[in-house]
C-alpha cells in the first residue's frame, strides 16, 4: 500500500478518536470510554465498505456490551470476572477481532451505576462518529485502491513468469530466482497482507464496482494458478534437445505475454499504452507446432513417458495464460472505453 494511503487512514482513525473524546467529555450518558471505544472499533471496518461493515462492527459491539451489562446487573463481581476471563480465553481460538470483542465484553462486565440505555446511546454516538469519519475524512477510493493493488500484482506476475521461463530453459541461477519470486508472490497473497485487495470479496462493496472488480480479481488469481502449474513443470528438467527446440517459440511467447502485462499496468495507471500488443495467437500456434512435433504420433494416455505429459501440460498452461490475459485485456478495454481512456 502507498505510504500516503496509510498516513491518511491513520489520520482519519486518530481524528475519529479525538472527536469522540471531545464529544464524550461534554455529552456522554455513561462511562466516557464507551463512545471512544466504539468509534475506534468501527474505524476498523474494511476500508472500501465503510457503511455496511461499520454498521456490522457497531451492531456486534452493541450486542457484546448489552449482554455484558445485563449479566453484570445480576451476577456477583467474582462471577463476572470468571465469565469475562472464560470468554477471553475461548476467543483466542478465533481471529484477532474476536479477541478485541472479548476484551470489550470483559470491560462491559465491570460494575457500573449506569443503565444499559445510557451505554447504548454512547456507543451509538461513537459508532456514528466512526462511520462518518470513514465516509468523509480521506475516504478510501475503492477503484484507485484496486488499481494500485492490481498493478503491483501484475508486476510480480511478470517477474515470476520471466523467472519460470529461464528455469524451463535451464538458464544459470534460474532456480534461486524463480523460488525467490514465488516466495515473494506467496507472501503477498497472504490474508493479512495489506497489498492484496481481499476486501473485494467482502459484503457491502459498491454495487457498481463489485462485478467488475471481482471478475478482474478472479482472473488475476487465476494467473497465479497457471504460473504455479508452469513452475511445477519446470521443476523436472527437459532434455537439452527439447530445450533447444522450445527456446525460441517459448521465449517469444513469454516476451509478448510480458508486453501484455506491461500494457495492463500502463492502462491501470491511467497512462496510454506505448505500443500495440499481440493476442498471442501466432506465438501459441508456433509453440503448439513445436510441441506436437516433439510428441510421437503413437502417444496415448497409457504411455508411461512423463516428459510427453509435461509437454502437453505446458502447452495447456500457455493456452490458459493466453486466454486469461485476453480476458483481462478485454475487461480493461471495456472499462477504459466507459471511462473515456
Amino acid at each position: 500500500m502507498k505510504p500516503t494511503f496509510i498516513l491518511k487512514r491513520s489520520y482519519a482513525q486518530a481524528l475519529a478518536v479525538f472527536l469522540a473524546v471531545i464529544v464524550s467529555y461534554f455529552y456522554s450518558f455513561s462511562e466516557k470510554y464507551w463512545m471512544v471505544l466504539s468509534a475506534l472499533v468501527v474505524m476498523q471496518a474494511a476500508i472500501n465498505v465503510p457503511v455496511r461493515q461499520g454498521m456490522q462492527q457497531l451492531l456486534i459491539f452493541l450486542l457484546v456490551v448489552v449482554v455484558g451489562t445485563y449479566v453484570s446487573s445480576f451476577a456477583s463481581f467474582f462471577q463476572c470476572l470468571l465469565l469475562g476471563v472464560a470468554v477471553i480465553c475461548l476467543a483466542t481460538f478465533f481471529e484477532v477481532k474476536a479477541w478485541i470483542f472479548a476484551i470489550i465484553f470483559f470491560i462491559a462486565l465491570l460494575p457500573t451505576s449506569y443503565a444499559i440505555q445510557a451505554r447504548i446511546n454512547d456507543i451509538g454516538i461513537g459508532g456514528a462518529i466512526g462511520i462518518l469519519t470513514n465516509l468523509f475524512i480521506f475516504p478510501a477510493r475503492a477503484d484507485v485502491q484496486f488499481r494500485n493493488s492490481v498493478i503491483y500484482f501484475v508486476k510480480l506476475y511478470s517477474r515470476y513468469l520471466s523467472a519460470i521461463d529461464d528455469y524451463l530453459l535451464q538458464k544459470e541461477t534460474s532456480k534461486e530466482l524463480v523460488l525467490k519470486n514465488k516466495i515473494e508472490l506467496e507472501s503477498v497473497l497472504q490474508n493479512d497482507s495489506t497489498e492484496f485487495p481481499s476486501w473485494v470479496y467482502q459484503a457491502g462493496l459498491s454495487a457498481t464496482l463489485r462485478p467488475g472488480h471481482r471478475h478482474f480479481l478472479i482472473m488475476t488469481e487465476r494467473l497465479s494458478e497457471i504460473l504455479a502449474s508452469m513452475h511445477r513443470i519446470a521443476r523436472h528438467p527437459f532434455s537439452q534437445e527439447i530445450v533447444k527446440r522450445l527456446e525460441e517459440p517459448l521465449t517469444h511467447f513469454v516476451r509478448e505475454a510480458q508486453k501484455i502485462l506491461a500494457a495492463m499496468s500502463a492502462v491501470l495507471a491511467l497512462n496510454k499504452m506505448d505500443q500495440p500488443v499481440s493476442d498471442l495467437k501466432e506465438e501459441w500456434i508456433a509453440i503448439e507446432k513445436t510441441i506436437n512435433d516433439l510428441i510421437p504420433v503413437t502417444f496415448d494416455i497409457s504411455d508411461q513417458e512423463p516428459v510427453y505429459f509435461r509437454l502437453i501440460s505446458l502447452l495447456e498452461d500457455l493456452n490458459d495464460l493466453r486466454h486469461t490475459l485476453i480476458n483481462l485485456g478485454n475487461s480493461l478495454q471495456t472499462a477504459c472505453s466507459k471511462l473515456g481512456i
Partner: protein
Amino acid sequence: MVRIKQVFRAIVAGALTLTVALFWKNPEKIWLILSSLILINLQIEKSFFKNQLFMLVVGILILVNICVVHFFGFYIFLLAGYLFTTTFFSAYTGWKYPRYFYPAFMINLLGIFAAASMSASQMNLAEAILGGVVLVLILRCFLWPTTFRSEIRVLYQDYCDALQALQKQIFEIYLRRDYVEHTYLYEKELHHKRFAVLEVINRMRILLIQMPPKLSTHYIGLVNRLDCLIEAVIVLGSLRYEIRDFSTLEVCEKELKAAMDHIADAFEKIKRYEPVAEDFSMESFEMLYQTTLQVVTNEPRVYLVFIHNIKQLLADLKNLSLIKEVV
C-alpha cells in the same frame, strides 16, 4: 492445533491470574487480569527469548501509555490530543506492519479505557500491570518452550488439513457442476482455502529461518516437498476454466468421486504418519477417457492432463508418506 494450544495457554493464564487477583490486596485487579490475558498469546513469530523481550516491551508501553494518560487527564483537550497521537501511531503501525496490529491496538485501547479510571492510584495501576507482565513472563517459561520439531509437527497437521480442504473444494466444483452459475461463490471459497494453505507454508518457512542451521537442513527437504504438493493440488483446479461444457463431467462422475475419496484417504494417512497404499488405480478413468471423453468433449487434451495430474498427486502423497522427518 495451534489455536487449541493458544486457548489452553490462555485458560491456564486466566486461572492463575484470577487466583492471584483474589488474594491480592491491590484494588486494580482488573488491570492485572487484562494485562496478563492480553499478553499471554502475544507471539510475533520470533525466538522464545525475543518473544519474551517483545512482550516485556509491550507491557511497559501499556504502563507508560496509561501513566501519560493520567498525567494529561486534568485537561480534556490535552488528553484528546494525546489520544489522537497514540491512535495515529497505533493505526500506522497496524497498517504498515500487520503482524503488530494486535499489540498496537491493545496499547491504544487500554489507554482509552484508562482515561476513564482517573481516580485510580498510579502506583496501584503500575503494580497491577507489572504484576500481569511478570506473571505472564513466568508462565510462558513453562507453557511456551516447544521444540522446533513439535512446532513443525503442529504446522504439518495444519498444512494437511488446509490442503485437504482445498482439494475437496476443487472436486466439489467438478461434482456439483454449477460452477458457471455460481462462479464468484466458488472462487471466493477457493481463494480462502488457498490462502489458508499459503499461510501455513509461509509459517513453516519462517520457522526454518529461526531453526539452528543443522536442524533446518534436516527439515528443508520436507518443506520443499510440501510446497510442491500445493502446486500439485492447485493444478487440479485448472479444469474448471479449461472446459466449456460442465455436463461432460457427468460422464466421469463416479471416477471423480473415487479419486476424491482416495486422495482424502491419503491425506488422512499422511496426517497419521501412515504409509499410503498403492491400491488405487486410475485405469477405469483412463479407459473412460479413451472410450468416451475423447469423443464427447471439445477439449480432450485437458482431461488427459487432469488424469495425469491426479496420478502425480497420488504418487507425491505416497512418497511423502514414506518420509521419516516428521515421525
